[in-house]
């Protein structure tokens, strides 16, 4: 098992000097995932914060080969790269082993890129897809996505006198990915670098598609103190708002079980997107949220215990 120091000592695929907001969690995620590869990496990146902040022409923060095409097709672009890799290998035009990694935001993955993702997973290309999940369209200023949690206020479904924010819970993207019977799909969170690193390593060792959904707090649009990114990531896990688990060949394993799960308010408070939930009239919304989280956790425990293969 690698230590944090060892991970940090690996060559850096994403250079500093990019234009992420202060406190943004994306950098740590990308750096960790790239460090987990012991082969050269090629990156396909969907439109979104990561793409925009790392490549303002004529500059690039990428020290690895990198492509951005459009918002909704990182998985298809990665499919093309992987296929070109096999074709050129077969024809003796290249000889190096590589890993192909796609990065997309939650919008580019759960929503507009969903079809391309499903197609790529179904076809079985050998690549890792990483969604850095900040629970909304952040590059464009906090619009709702199907990863936005219940109760969050966004600019397209704002809280108001007749609205408590988003009325739906998020889509379960990891189980959907796993349901394609890919070898490996997992969640991870921004603060737990070692868990993320190990999962990325495991994902990259598969002979087929793998999928990681990494929770990434967004200082600007979750609206919290930029010093607290890792704190919020941790609270998301400690409250079971974002459990850490993996589907290894379809079988669920929960990686971390909080001894005393914290109440959801601990995660919600201090975030501007949930501020309205602390009004007395929205008390039932928080209660409902807590109930949904607890039920989902129970479901996961049962699924793990059953040993069933998804």
């Amino acid at each position, binding site marked *: 098992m690698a230590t944090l120091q060892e991970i940090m000592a690996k060559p850096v695929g994403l250079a500093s000097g990019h234009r992420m907001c202060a406190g943004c969690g994306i950098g740590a995620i990308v750096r960790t995932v790239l460090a987990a590869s012991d082969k*050269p990496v*090629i990156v*396909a990146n969907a439109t979104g914060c990561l*793409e*925009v902040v790392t*490549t*303002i*022409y*004529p500059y*690039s923060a*990428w*020290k*690895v*080969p*990198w*492509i*951005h*095409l*459009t918002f*909704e*097709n990182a998985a*298809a*672009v*990665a*499919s*093309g*790269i992987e*296929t*070109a*890799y*096999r*074709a*050129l290998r*077969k*024809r003796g*035009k*290249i000889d*190096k082993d*590589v890993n192909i990694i796609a990065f997309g935001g939650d919008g580019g993955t759960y929503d507009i890129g969903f*079809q*391309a993702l*499903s*197609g*790529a997973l*179904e*076809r079985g290309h050998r690549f890792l897809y990483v969604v850095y999940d900040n629970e909304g369209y952040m590059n464009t200023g906090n619009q709702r996505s199907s990863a936005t949690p219940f109760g969050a206020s966004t600019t397209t479904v704002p809280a108001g006198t007749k609205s408590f924010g988003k009325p739906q819970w998020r889509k379960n993207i990891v189980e959907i990915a796993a349901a394609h019977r890919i070898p490996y799909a997992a969640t991870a969170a921004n603060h737990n670098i070692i868990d993320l690193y190990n999962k990325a390593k495991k994902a990259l060792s598969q002979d087929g598609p793998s999928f990681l959904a990494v929770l990434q707090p967004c200082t600007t649009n979750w609206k919290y103190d930029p010093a607290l990114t890792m704190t919020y990531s941790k609270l998301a896990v400690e409250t079971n708002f974002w459990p850490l688990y993996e589907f290894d060949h379809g079988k669920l394993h929960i990686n971390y079980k909080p001894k005393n799960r914290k109440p959801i308010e601990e995660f919600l408070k201090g975030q501007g997107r949930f501020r309205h939930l602390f009004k007395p009239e929205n008390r039932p919304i928080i209660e409902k949220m807590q109930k949904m989280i607890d039920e989902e956790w129970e479901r996961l425990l049962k699924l793990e215990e059953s040993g069933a293969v998804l």
Partner: protein
Amino acid sequence: MSTWKALTGAQAVAEAMRQANPDVVAAYPITPQTPIVEQFASFVANGIVDTEMIPVESEHSAMSCTVGAAAAGARAMCATASQGLALMWEVVAAVPGLRLPIVMPIVNRALSAPINIHCDHSDAMGATTIGWIQIYSENAQEAYENTLLAIRLAEHKDVLLPVMVMQDGFIISHGVENVEVFDDEAVKNFVGERKPDRYLLDVDHPYTIGPLALPDYYFEIKRQQEAAMENALKVYLEVGKELSKISGHDYPYFEEYKTEDAEAVIVILSSAAGTAKDAVDELRNEGKKVGLVKPKLFRPFPYREMRKALEKFKAIGVLDRSMAFGAYAPLYTEVRNALFESENRPKLQSYIFGLGGKDIFKSDIKKVFDELLSGNLNPEEQRYIRLRG
């Protein structure tokens, strides 16, 4: 040695692809392009080519995969029609800016609504302003040869632009012709191998493709694309000359048919030019001074050469197989533009025909020539051929 084969237009393009043996093909079936995909898939399934084919879930992913593969360093091809081109539009529009030399055969089909699977040019004519080179083919033979030419044109270092090679849906794609298929070895030598100077799989030389560009550089990047289009005019002829050595055919910007002493000519694209040539032959036999000009290279449009070719005629009828709703029809627009600088501008008349696969007959073409020769022209009026009253 070349061989003669009974092939549909779709099969003829698949033959060109077989001979080019690209590294990667990604395509999604749509009538009437489907037989290209099917034929090529059977080549792959039977080891006739060793291309890696990606059976994508949509045209959007077809073009996205093609771009990924081309950026990675592969020679990658795609093919589509109509709704498929419309669905992949966003990605199609990004390719020229990425300077990826992708060749995409298009089997022209009407655009919905109403949904219609038959031929017209509304799909490709909607894609004339985004930086793809466009070549139109009259028959299966031309579709075959243009596909080969397109590969070299696209990949030329002074060009590096994507190319659409058009053929008419059903009329050509599904009609069987005797096609001369050139010697495999000769074609292999002609198309050669793609040698990109930068590509993603060159992992020792990492490069960033597809960055964000702001107002300080975006414009400049687009201007370079236009320079590449200007180069394409020259390179098209050069590559054509090389292909001539194998084929014995010429590859001009446009074909001039019986135009030397003509007074009236029509300008028309693709398969309908074949019908129109028959009409020209018959009218010539009657002693009428008529001819035809068939553009092949539509983007970049050879304005200067077209002006020189057309300004000597008295009357010109331009026949378009698509409309540009609220504006002059696309081919007519270009002909008009080409002639603007002329001292003695010929009389022009715009006709629209054949939308959604409506047939056009020799008699229709003869009627056009009657109007051109008799001076029954009204440039203010849009004329329609075989439109129900």
